[in-house]
């Protein structure tokens, strides 16, 4: 194959710079493997620190913690005066007032509180603002807790089922586990970043993590198929070949999600999109550096043993 290349074309791509980059990726794959490992360890550190200081893996919002959320789709409400009004009405209560914006334009506000009854809060809002369109959501704290636990169990089961399907497909235990490890580190690193930028996780955010598993497994299966099931060329050629497809997949998904994030008017949808953007970018690293590195090490070990 390399004979076909002339001076203008590198080994892996027409563009010389990209080809150089890929050559570096080829030669240094063991060193590169350190990056995702360090990131995973740091992430576990961040999450453990959060857990030891707050007793939770992540900061939860009202929908997971229990409490009440009122959303008002109105541009004319002044957030600051509402804040001072509410803190004088309910001194010592944990109330947060946030503005919903779209493209920098204010489209409404949401008020969250964890220790006030919905009727009390609604009545005091009505005295201040009059009759507006109020959306009220109230979550019992027990349900929030069990919902979080339940999702945790569901994710464990999901991982277990994925391992079974992947093993059935590839019939090789280490690559199967590597796919799940990649999806797992993807979730952990994303969770750590969410923690660091101070996002309060909602039920919608939990759903986003589940969506992430699906996307992450897709790219990893693409990689494993290319490496394990295909013949012809060297392993690195097949990886680069798969990476082109994988990056095309990721870039279309990311562009759709970024658009949704920018134009979304709902807090729930915005959070789903934010988590997916972070997760998909991390997935590039987890699939094409971590999993690809593990697969190459695995294949080298196997040929040596033979």
């Amino acid at each position, binding site marked *: 194959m390399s004979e076909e290349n002339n001076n203008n074309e590198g080994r892996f791509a027409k563009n010389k710079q990209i080809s150089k980059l890929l050559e570096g990726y080829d030669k240094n794959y063991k060193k590169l493997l350190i990056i995702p490992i360090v990131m995973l360890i740091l992430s576990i550190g961040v999450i453990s620190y959060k857990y030891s200081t707050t007793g939770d893996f992540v900061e939860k919002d009202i929908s997971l913690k229990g409490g009440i959320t009122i959303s008002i789709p109105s541009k004319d409400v002044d957030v600051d005066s509402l804040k001072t009004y509410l803190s004088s009405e309910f001194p010592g209560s944990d109330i947060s007032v946030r503005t919903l914006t779209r493209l920098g334009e204010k489209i409404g506000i949401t008020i969250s509180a964890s220790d006030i009854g919905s009727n009390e809060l609604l009545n005091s809002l009505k005295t201040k603002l009059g009759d507006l369109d109020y959306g009220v959501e109230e979550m019992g704290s027990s349900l929030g807790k069990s919902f979080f636990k339940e999702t945790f169990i569901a994710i464990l089961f999901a991982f277990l089922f994925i391992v079974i399907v*992947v093993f059935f497909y590839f019939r090789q235990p280490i690559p199967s586990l590597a796919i799940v490890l990649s999806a797992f580190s993807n979730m952990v690193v994303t969770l750590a970043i969410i923690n660091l930028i101070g996002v309060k996780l909602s039920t919608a955010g939990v759903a986003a993590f589940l969506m992430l598993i699906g996307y992450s497994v*897709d790219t990893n299966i693409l990689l494993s198929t290319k490496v394990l099931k295909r013949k012809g060329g060297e392993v690195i050629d097949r990886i680069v070949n798969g990476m082109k497809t994988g990056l095309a997949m990721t*870039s279309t998904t990311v562009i759709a999600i970024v658009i949704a994030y920018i134009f979304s008017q709902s807090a729930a949808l915005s959070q789903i999109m934010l988590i997916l953007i972070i997760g998909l970018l991390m997935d590039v690293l987890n699939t094409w550096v971590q999993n690809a590195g593990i697969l190459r090490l695995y294949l080298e070990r196997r040929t040596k043993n033979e």
Partner: protein
Amino acid sequence: MSKIKKIFTNLRVIILLAVILFAVVAVNPHPFNKGVTIRNVILNSSASLAGIESPKPTASPMSKERIISINNKPINNVLDYYSFEASLKQNRTVSIKTDRGTYRLITKYKTETIVLNETINETITHEVDVTEIVNGTKVNKTINKTEVITVPKTITKVYNDSIDLGIRVYNAPTTNIRKGLDLQGGTRVLLEPEEKISADEMEIVLSNIKQRLNVYGLSDIVVRTTADLSGNQYILIEIAGVNEEEVKELVARQGKFEAKIGDNIVFKGGNDIPYICRSADCSGIDPNTGCSQTNGQWFCRFRFSISLSPEAAERQAELTENLDIVTEGQQDYLNETLDLYLDNQHVDSLNIGAELKGRAITDIQISGSGMGTTEQAALFESLKNMKRLQTILITGSLPVKLNIVKTDAISPALGEKFVKNAFFIGFLAIVGVSLIVFLIYRRIEISLSIIITVIAEVILILGVAALIGWNIDIAAIAGIIIAIGSGVDDQIVISDELLRKEQQIFFNWKQRIKNAFFIIMAAYFTTVVAMLPLMRAGAGLLKGFAITTIIGISVGVFITRPAFAAVVEILLKDKL
């Protein structure tokens, strides 16, 4: 030209087109549908007297009756309808034109009516056709006949400042897709039994709640159970369009009725009370005390008789035997009262006549009261309370106490904005994705095929949802996003496997298609199994998400992907 012919004669493409056609029929889109659709019709209102009926809750959205104009003035939306209603005067005739016919209504003031459990006799006069023989010839004649019939007694409160035609409406739907509660507005209550109950007991709870809601005349209600992975049971109630505080209170009420002397239970609701009187002679406003005014507030007392089982009567005899007799005014009473509790809340205390001491009496009177600023209001409130207490005693108490764990009241305006926003985002996302795809492949055919398949997939998912009556809510929209995202991913895999030079060196066309579908199927199965645990997790909060995702990716893998591969093959195979 022949290529286009080839595409449309390809079996996979034909299957796709046929299924899309079927989906469009199921969705039944009418984007310019105007008017308001009837959600429900209030009993005995002008509308119900004129023959307009409430739609069945199971009817598909497009098949529900739609109001087009009133008095020849077109009614385009809910605002039109209610502002027209507000402009009406009493005792006028209005003609309402719907998609089924024209009705003539006589306007009435807005009223609130409660149907009591007691009955009264009413004399009515109606015309009957009879045949008489006069002088040997048959003559058809209409005579007035008077009859006495038994009807339920009602009490009515009139608001003489506003007109109510008795129709509850919403903007006419433009498709058969059922919007979930978070998109159309309404109230959702999630209840959890305090302790674990059996499937039989759960049946009782569900039918009991339904019965109680029916008493309040609400339609468009969903009552069902859901569970989670840990085996916790929940009851989900969804009431579309309305925000009923009272409903929330009524459904969560266990209806545990207890009558106690001191701390001892004399009798409970259920088996201890075999008979509850609902006729006028032994139920209604207490004729002895009636209504009275204190400090500007009116009080009215109600009473109704019940029968106790012999065991309960025996218990009463035992508990009253050792009580002392006190004299209050002219009457002799026992020194303890019979206290009535509903769901552990004190309702009323009754003095026990001295003559009942130590005797097993089976006929007992239950009483309570209502309060209001006017006598009329107090009367109304009192009878409402009686009715509620009787309903609870008749429908029986729930076998377990229910706790409200989650309530949502969603304003319809929020939902409408969300749908518009979702469409806008979807449109922009498709444009963005096809641009990127064009940048990658530099082939307009691939971008176009991807756009067309994405749109086809959305139509198919919505078609399936309309067909099985599945609600599209925010969670389902997230599921659709996943399905479309992985759809685009799969199409990129197909394009890459078929068109890349590297692939062409090692594999022939058939093998390349096989390679692509190997990856697609692996991704499909892993996503499906990852969604399975979610269907049962967390009180069904993620069920909509999981099911829509599974429907979406299944439709994609089995219908649109094969068609996409066929189209790419026809368009590009010879260009390579």
